[in-house]
């Protein structure tokens, strides 16, 4: 068994003294792990950081085996992000959400494309916290949809209208209008306008935080809690960064 693919590094774990097990989100082969000979060596470790774009060749005698990666670095964003704590927090949140959520060896081409676009956005000097947060919300919505837990934000679950959609039902994952949801507002999740109205313009940081609370609720219930691992700590740190920025005004 062998294949070649483009990928984004999600994590690197030490294996023995100098070797490593690399986890990569590939374009056509999904989230995949493989052994990298001397992956922890001074020469290789710098190229194998989370968020780096690589070309990988995977080989295994048996299809179900861990297999072995040969890695060729394509682009390492770390140099551009190193001086910015918020960008690093966003990078860690993005890769850890994908690593903690997607099943192994199942192609998720749209999520891969989404992550590539988000990493490019992170390196854009003109982008800011609100853009990365919005991107993470959209990435998580895409992950939910790919896993079969997609939210239906097209019309009100109670009335069928698509006017003034303000909430999301935690039970069904469907949108609820302001009037139909008013009596149950405390039990419903807030639906930020930027997720339903493409003309709504850039969201505020608070709307992004609401979006992350929304996707975090459904990812938690359908994936993370089922695996007994909870929200990835890196995502928690990013939402804390967002909350600190909101409180600063």
């Amino acid at each position, binding site marked *: 068994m062998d294949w070649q693919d483009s990928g984004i590094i999600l994590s690197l774990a030490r294996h023995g003294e100098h070797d490593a097990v690399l986890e990569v989100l590939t374009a056509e082969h999904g989230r995949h792990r493989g052994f990298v000979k001397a992956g922890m060596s001074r020469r290789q470790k710098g190229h194998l*950081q989370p*968020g780096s774009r690589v070309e990988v060749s995977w080989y295994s005698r048996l299809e179900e085996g861990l297999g072995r990666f040969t890695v060729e670095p394509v682009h*390492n964003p770390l*140099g*551009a992000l190193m001086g910015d704590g918020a960008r*690093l927090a966003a990078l*860690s949140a993005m890769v850890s959400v994908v690593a903690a959520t997607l099943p192994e060896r199942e192609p998720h081409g749209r999520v891969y494309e989404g992550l590539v676009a988000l990493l490019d956005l992170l390196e854009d000097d003109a982008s800011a916290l609100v853009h990365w947060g919005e991107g993470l919300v959209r990435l998580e919505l895409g992950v939910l949809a790919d896993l079969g837990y997609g939210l239906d934000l097209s019309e009100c679950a109670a009335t069928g209208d698509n006017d003034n959609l303000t909430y999301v039902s935690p039970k069904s994952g469907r949108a609820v209008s302001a009037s139909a949801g008013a009596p149950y507002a405390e039990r419903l999740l807030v639906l930020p306008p930027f997720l339903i109205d493409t003309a709504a313009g850039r969201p505020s940081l608070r709307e992004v935080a609401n979006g992350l609370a929304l996707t975090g609720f459904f990812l938690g219930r359908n994936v993370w809690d089922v695996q007994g691992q909870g929200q990835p700590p890196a995502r928690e*740190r990013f939402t804390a960064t967002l909350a600190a920025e909101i409180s600063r005004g």
Partner: protein
Amino acid sequence: MPRSHGADIDGLIQLLSRLPGLGPRSAKRAALQMLKKKDSVMVPLARALADVAERVVTCTTCGNIDTHDPCHVCADARRDRATICVVEDVADLWALDRSESFRGLYHVLGGTLSALDGVGPEDLNIAGLLARVDAGGIGEVILALNATVDGQTTSHYLAERLKASGVKVTALAHGVPVGGELDYLDDGTLAAALRARGSVE
């Protein structure tokens, strides 16, 4: 399989092969060298190992490993006591001190924040650092952590935590290594070097 030595020597070889950089073959070579030079190498080595094993402690001030608490670095009155250099591991402390370019105090974190390994702020010696800074007399904290995602995330987390203390927080520069050729550098290092460029006097 024929055995060329007894269980005692076999045990010694197995213990040596657990050390970094030594495999079974090189451990066997090291053991043979010690056996051949029993009086000049093996006995003094065994004595030194037993002596250090009995007295080794972690410095309660900085986290360095030494046979004294406070360690030799913390106890050295000639050092600049207003500057603390924060490192990930004792190996980093020893490497920086070997360079003799820094003559202040150190603080060993014991790791970095890591989403993959589930290492959070409470797992690191951050409270000890904040307590040292709060105790007063510190003018600058230098963050000398690795240029990895985890290392840099930890740097920014520490900078945020230290902000309230008002102490000056700096970090090591990243860029072209001494003797490095641009052609051989990865694009991440080049990008960091360009961002950290300075004027030529």
